[in-house]
């Protein structure tokens, strides 16, 4: 019977100039589309006199900020899911995934960049993205004083005075990125240290750090979802929201892992990864697409059924809007109907063609999910899906892929001393 050692385990990914060029072309295309989008909205946008007078005028850069925020949150999620899925493999002592561990881990390289972008965007765009950053909401003598937001103020401003500097919010943002980047580096160093030694010492060590990370991630990912997305609609709240955002991130992250694995296999790397491993990745994408739908629908059904105004406003804003209502159905079609029907059969999960199409569309679909979370609360009827959105998505996507491929290049693609490598190779389903 064939052994895993009959393959070249020291294979290294060659980040060729032509590949770099194609990524740069996509980036350039994104910049061009984005620029055209900005110019059109500069000259084409109508001017709302009434809104101008109240100090809430809509400017083209609001849409830029909203786009930055959508992609920041989305790609941060994909990056941290790479580390999360890697940690899950160790905590669960999974053997099947050993050949693709490095692919999962590579997504985390985006995290430091994402952290900087997130913090900078928050400081630049706080008033335009987050209603709660206005200090008049907390001033009892101001006509615009908001009793409900005042009650929630401590969540952002503690221990400082409400309406001043959102120190608690900023500390959380820095702490979450700090934790995620710290654990990513720890796991990466341990995983690559293993290449020089055999034995299970590093494996046990990674397992310990993974378990700690998973506990911290469970809390931080949920609170990050409230902070970065749910607080946009400050009055509204949903107890499902942490899970909802996590599920969206997870499916998108799994799709990216699957696509990169298929790409590397297509180029002749990851020789020991076969259709059984691809099948398992496909099952994950299939299962968690349904999980996302379950969470999405659980949130929707309870709000729809109870029909309490303070809760249903979230869906009224989206379903009864000319701008956003079509995207609700695009969202459900791309993220539920498509993976559910296409990935149901065994063959479609074992053959790369189906997976490539479905995973690409899922990545787009979950971008629409975040688009629907962020834009209605920040831009209202001024939002939409146009050149600016496509351009920004291409820019972020190309930059993300560039960082991930650069980190994969020049290092071993397979954890060659992993104690379960042989088991992974003989994985059969």
């Amino acid at each position, binding site marked *: 019977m064939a052994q895993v050692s009959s393959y070249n385990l020291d294979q290294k990914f060659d980040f060729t100039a032509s590949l770099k060029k194609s990524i740069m072309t996509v980036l350039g295309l994104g910049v061009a589309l984005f620029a055209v989008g900005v110019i059109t909205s500069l000259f084409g946008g109508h001017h709302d006199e009434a809104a101008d007078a109240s100090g809430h005028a809509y400017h083209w850069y609001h849409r830029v900020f909203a786009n930055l925020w959508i992609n920041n949150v989305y790609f941060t999620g994909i990056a941290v899911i790479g580390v999360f899925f890697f940690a899950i493999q160790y905590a669960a002592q999974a053997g099947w995934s050993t050949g693709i561990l490095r692919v999962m881990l590579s997504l985390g390289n985006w995290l430091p960049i994402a952290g900087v972008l997130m913090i900078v965007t928050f400081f630049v765009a706080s008033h335009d993205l987050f209603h709660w950053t206005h200090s008049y909401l907390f001033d009892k003598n101001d006509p615009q004083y908001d009793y409900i937001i005042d009650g929630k103020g401590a969540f952002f401003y503690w221990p400082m005075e409400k309406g001043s500097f959102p120190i608690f919010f900023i500390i959380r943002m820095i702490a979450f990125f700090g934790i995620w980047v710290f654990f990513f580096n720890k796991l990466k160093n341990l995983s690559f240290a293993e290449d020089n030694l055999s034995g299970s010492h590093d494996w046990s060590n990674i397992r310990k750090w993974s378990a700690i990370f998973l506990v911290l991630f469970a809390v931080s990912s949920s609170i990050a979802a409230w902070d970065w997305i749910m607080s946009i609609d400050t009055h509204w709240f949903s107890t499902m929201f942490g899970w909802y955002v996590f599920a969206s991130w997870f499916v998108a992250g799994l799709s990216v892992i699957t696509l990169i694995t298929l790409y590397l296999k297509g180029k002749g790397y990851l020789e020991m990864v076969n259709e059984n491993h691809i099948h398992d990745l496909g099952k994950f994408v299939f299962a968690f697409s349904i999980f996302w739908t379950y969470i999405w629908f659980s949130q929707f*059904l309870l709000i729809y*059924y109870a029909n309490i105004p303070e809760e249903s406003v979230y869906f009224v804003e989206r379903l009864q809007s000319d701008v956003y209502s079509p995207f609700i159905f695009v969202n459900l079609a791309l993220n539920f109907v498509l993976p559910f029907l296409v990935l149901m059969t065994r063959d479609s999960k074992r053959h790369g063609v189906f997976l490539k199409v479905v995973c690409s569309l899922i990545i787009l679909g979950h971008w629409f999910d975040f688009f629907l979370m962020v834009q209605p609360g920040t831009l209202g009827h001024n939002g939409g899906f146009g050149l600016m959105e496509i351009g920004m998505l291409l820019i972020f996507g190309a930059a993300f892929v560039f960082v991930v491929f650069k980190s994969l290049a020049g290092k071993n693609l397979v954890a060659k001393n992993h104690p379960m490598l042989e088991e992974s190779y003989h994985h059969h389903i």
Partner: protein
Amino acid sequence: MERDKNFVLGVFDDEDVLLDAVSKVRGSGVKIHEVYSPFPVHGIDDVLGYKRSRLPIAAFLFGILGTTLALVMQFYMMKIDWPMIIGGKDHAAFPDFIPVTFELTVLLAAFGMVGVFMVSSNLKPWAQPRIFDLRITDDKHVMAIDLATNASLGEEKIGDILKSSGATEVNKKSFE
């Protein structure tokens, strides 16, 4: 000679030997009736050349039946038979129907799949199982070869092929 009556049995100790033996025996032109094992042997369905099970198709069809039944039932009850206004919603409020639809889909898909499996595997409660060798419930793998389907080779030749591919014993078994 009648089919399904007289069998030559090759008894194997080890599943790796068994896997190789299946390929060898099939390679020498013998048609295998069935292989019995005390535990699942990975990859044996591939070497035996079994076609993919059609059970998932049955499950899918039963699932669709469940979806349809659930939607028709709820629509009939809520819209036609006894319309009531609940929470100010339309009589046929589609989102409300989804949980029940989901449950009935899963229920019928699961029950249908179990039922089809029972019938197709001859696991009817009144079915009389044929035991080729009692040791298949303990520590031996048994390859059963129907003499009637391999009449051109003859009992002795089949026995030799089994021996040469690693069988520890070759027995004969007849059923009434």
